[in-house]
């Protein structure tokens, strides 16, 4: 196969291991230090403790940031995926003039630097006398996550065959029945993938959020950012750990669930 000489392959193997260490060691250290019993968020480890997680749960500012992030992420996921699935259906199922141009337009929000996207939306809505509020934050997250949803959903849609719908229609179902009883169930994995993706991106976003958020409102990332201004506390590591577990476990559970559903349907 493509394996180069034994020395070349050894080099590649070592480089790969180093790359993975580079990617994951800092994250692992965050999770390790979150359990540090010491009152400083740093080495040495003086013992294992969950006291920082307990303190997190008692910190009102962090709880509020968490709630904001969850609501924002969920609303973004629902809106962005609804819009994105419709657009993806149009792109995958139909041929029409100007399709290539529209495909570029749909991913335009990620081609524009996020800072510029953030400034444009902020300035325009302030010009329309809309105060910095939750709606601005939500609109920003929707427009920023839309291209990711479109890309993910399109990739899934390509694999769904059109024949099922045509069969339903030819067997006498009306378009409405066809959509809800045939198309939508087939679409569900794509919808779920889009929603997960949108939720995670929204939940993690900081670049745009710092521009859009009203004063006094924090999401988890902006809360961490604000806390970093002082010094790195064990609480930040604990909060980071909670976020890592949440944002990593969610897609993994989603993928597992999708596989389980698929195997059940297949069997």
């Amino acid at each position: 196969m493509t394996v180069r000489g034994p020395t070349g392959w050894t080099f590649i193997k070592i480089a790969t291991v180093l790359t993975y260490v580079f990617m994951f060691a800092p994250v692992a250290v965050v999770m390790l230090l979150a359990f540090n019993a010491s009152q400083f968020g740093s080495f040495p480890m003086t013992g294992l403790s969950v006291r920082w997680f307990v303190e997190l749960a008692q910190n009102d500012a962090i709880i509020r940031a968490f709630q904001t992030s969850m609501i924002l992420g969920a609303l973004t996921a629902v809106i962005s995926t609804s819009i994105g699935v419709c657009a993806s259906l149009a792109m995958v199922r139909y041929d029409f003039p100007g399709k290539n141009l529209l495909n570029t337009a749909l991913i335009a929000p990620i081609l524009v630097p996020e800072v510029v996207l953030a400034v444009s939306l902020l300035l325009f809505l302030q010009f329309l006398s809309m105060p910095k509020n939750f709606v601005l934050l939500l609109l920003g997250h929707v427009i920023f996550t839309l291209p990711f949803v479109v890309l993910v959903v399109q990739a899934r849609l390509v694999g769904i065959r059109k024949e099922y719908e045509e069969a339903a229609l030819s067997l006498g179902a009306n378009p409405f029945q066809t959509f809800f009883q045939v198309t939508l169930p087939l679409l569900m994995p794509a919808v779920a993938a889009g929603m997960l993706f949108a939720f995670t991106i929204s939940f993690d976003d900081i670049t745009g959020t710092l521009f859009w958020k009203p004063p006094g409102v924090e999401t988890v990332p902006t809360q961490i950012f604000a806390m970093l201004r002082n010094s790195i506390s064990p609480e930040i590591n604990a909060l980071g750990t909670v976020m890592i577990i949440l944002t990593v476990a969610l897609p993994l559970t989603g993928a597992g669930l999708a596989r389980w559903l698929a195997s059940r349907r297949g069997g």
Partner: protein
Amino acid sequence: MAVSDAHTRDMRPWALLSPALTAITLLLAIPTCFVIVYSFWLRTAAGDEQVGFYLDNWIEVLSDPFYRDILLYTLKIGLITTVCCALMGYPAAYFIAFSKMRNKAFLLLLLMLPFWISYIIRTMSWINILGVSGAVNYVLQSLGIVAEPIQMLYNEATVILGLIHFLLPFMVLNIYVSLEGIDPNLNAAARSLGSTPFQAFREVTLPLSLPGLAAGSLLCFVLGSGTYITPIVLGGPGDGMFANLIYDAIITQLNWPLGSALSIVLLIVLGSVVLLYNRYLSLGQISKGFG
């Protein structure tokens, strides 16, 4: 009947697209045009905005070497980051693509994981590693190599390090997608025709993986050059990038016309990189990573 059927069939994609297109028009296209207009307004000493056609912001941005130097510095950081990502990412992508290990799916999953871990956490995690009381200093002090902790953070190098850490997965994924699509027979053919493994790599595999390498580089360069969070968290006072100027103008100084002009500069510079890329290669390559 046939005519009206053809007519409805024509309208359906537009109906499906209309919410997305409305959102993009109202939340992206018009606001961006508005920022161009805004950049010609003026912020008076009293703190009001003066509507009109003033070139003051543009003269300031285009003639003051301060802005030019930071722009060039930003592009330099973006370029170094991209090159480092390519050098580090290629071997890893190559290994995942051609390894015969049973745990290949696991390696791929590991590669995707960083996408799900928050950017701010990955950035701040380096403080735990390189900070005064971080892992490296702890090890060095325990081993007696240094008596006092070394200050390794808050400079240009740590900004680049943080950006590499943030952007490397984009590079690996794009190279992997393109390596995975190469027909292994091509390499075998080159080998059987007498080329050395390295020649086969240089003449066959590498050229065929260039689209992925280019797509990864585009993402790394554009995302890296547009950031302001990493310089704030991991950089020193003098390590601000161009997006930091925009952040300061809009959020700190509330000089929105100036911030608008700076935003347009960044949009034009990074936008031309995207357009240049799309002229010779296709943006479609990037969407393959989502498949």
